[in-house]
């Protein structure tokens, strides 16, 4: 099934650790390398550190130890490096986080103009292209509150894509949606995967993981418990903990 061509490593995560101020250890000695065009799915029980991992990758959370490199740029104290990484790594949140005071068009155009320094016309052209891509072009001029959850999440995906990121991260992008809207969002994510986008996806949608992912990581208590290709992972898990988790969720 995997006939996909991968590139070099675009993300290198080496032994990172993260302890929150309240003493909770969210990540412990976590390492992984992700190749260009690879789709990596992270699964694990609630509180296992999946969101924290994603948030460390783009600098939303600071790591205490270890190192992260994105497309050759180290995520360190250098502000310029951090900004570069923020621009190159797109993120889609569970609760969409659209800007409620801006129309869909502005939500997607704003950062193109401010950060990518495009003209309004260029930015809005690009925005319309993206809205077509996520099947919602007719909603360009409405406010987020007038959209369904599924539509809002598709706008959020378009907003992230507008920055032309090299990596896209999804943190339970479908968990807040009504069941009938999950499909339309997963569809957009699948299209992205097929186009060769590098993706790091936290999800409870095992169907999606099985079908789309190239690599699955199961984590618990901030540590990697088991990983492997989707085929191996789902048909022949090695660890008891993984088996138990899969039996509960499938």
């Amino acid at each position, binding site marked *: 099934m995997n006939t996909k061509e991968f590139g070099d490593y675009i993300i290198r995560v080496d032994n990172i650790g993260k302890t929150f101020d309240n003493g909770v250890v969210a990540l412990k000695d976590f390492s992984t390398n992700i190749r260009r065009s690879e789709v990596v799915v992270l699964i694990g029980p609630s509180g296992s550190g999946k969101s924290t991992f994603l948030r460390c990758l783009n600098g*939303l959370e600071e790591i205490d130890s270890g190192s992260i490199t994105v497309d050759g740029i180290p995520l360190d104290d250098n502000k310029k490096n951090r*900004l570069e990484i923020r621009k190159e790594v797109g993120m889609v949140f569970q609760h969409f*986080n659209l*800007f409620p*005071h801006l129309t869909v068009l502005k939500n997607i155009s*704003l950062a193109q103009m*401010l*950060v990518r320094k495009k003209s309004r016309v260029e930015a809005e052209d690009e925005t319309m292209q993206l809205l077509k891509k996520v099947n919602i072009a007719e909603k360009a001029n409405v406010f987020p509150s007038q959209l369904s959850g599924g539509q809002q999440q598709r706008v959020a995906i378009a907003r992230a894509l507008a920055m032309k990121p090299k990596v896209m991260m999804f943190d339970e992008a479908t968990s807040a949606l009504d069941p009938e809207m999950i499909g339309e969002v997963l569809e957009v994510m699948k299209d992205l995967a097929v186009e060769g986008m590098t993706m790091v996806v936290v999800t409870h949608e095992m169907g999606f993981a099985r079908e789309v992912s190239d690599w699955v990581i199961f984590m618990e208590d901030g540590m990697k418990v088991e990983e492997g290709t989707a085929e191996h992972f789902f048909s022949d898990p090695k660890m008891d903990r993984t088996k138990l988790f899969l039996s509960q969720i499938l």
Partner: protein
Amino acid sequence: MGSSILQFCKRHHLLDFSAYLVLMVGGIILLLKGAEDQGYYWQWFRIPKFLYQFEDGRFIAGPILNGLKITLNITWISLILTYIIGLVTALMRLSNSLMARGIARAYLELTRNTPLLVQIFFMYFVVAPILDIDRFTAAVLALSLFEGSYASEIYRAGIVAVNKGQWEASYTLGLNSYQNYRYIILPQAIRRILPPLTSQAISLIKDSSLVSVIAIYEMTMNANEIASETFLVFEIFFTIAAIYLALALTLSRVVAYFEKRYRVVT
């Protein structure tokens, strides 16, 4: 359901207002009566000339209106400074820089824990000679530094009330802090900030009467002088109280308008 609640509130406001009116009118009548009983001789007819006069058909403002002009001048300049100082202080408090936060803290502690009167004296007798500024500027600075610390809390509360997800979305899109505040956070915070910030104008107008202590001839100062020269104590102070009240009531209408217009929808 929603409209009946609205109507109740409206009626409630009306009730509040009529109760307030009855109380005020009652209070004033009692006062007038009480003064008369003590042998006070009311001379309202002498008041208008302190407000304005007509000479050869030309309107000439009297000392009270001249004082009002200065009160309004002090107020609007201080108000603009208050809004700027408040915003800058709030941003400093929320910034990552330890120094910025420290300076903001120190400023807030100083202005909040000393009386305004002392701050006005300090500005006039200590700071003004050093910086070589006139008394009007000293008054404006003292007032705006004092009110600015309260404004900063209004801004801060409005800013931190914006959903954390908004900061994160704007961060991941690569916006810098200026762009984040300018395009994402402040436009959303303004709904919470604007009504209380307008109320600050009311405090400012009232507090501006305190600068008479450094011999600024604003309305209260002029009223004081007239009262001591003419002994029309009640008439003069009722008059300026009415003017302050009219200003404050007008402003509170503006506040009410903003509250309605920017009602926080969640």
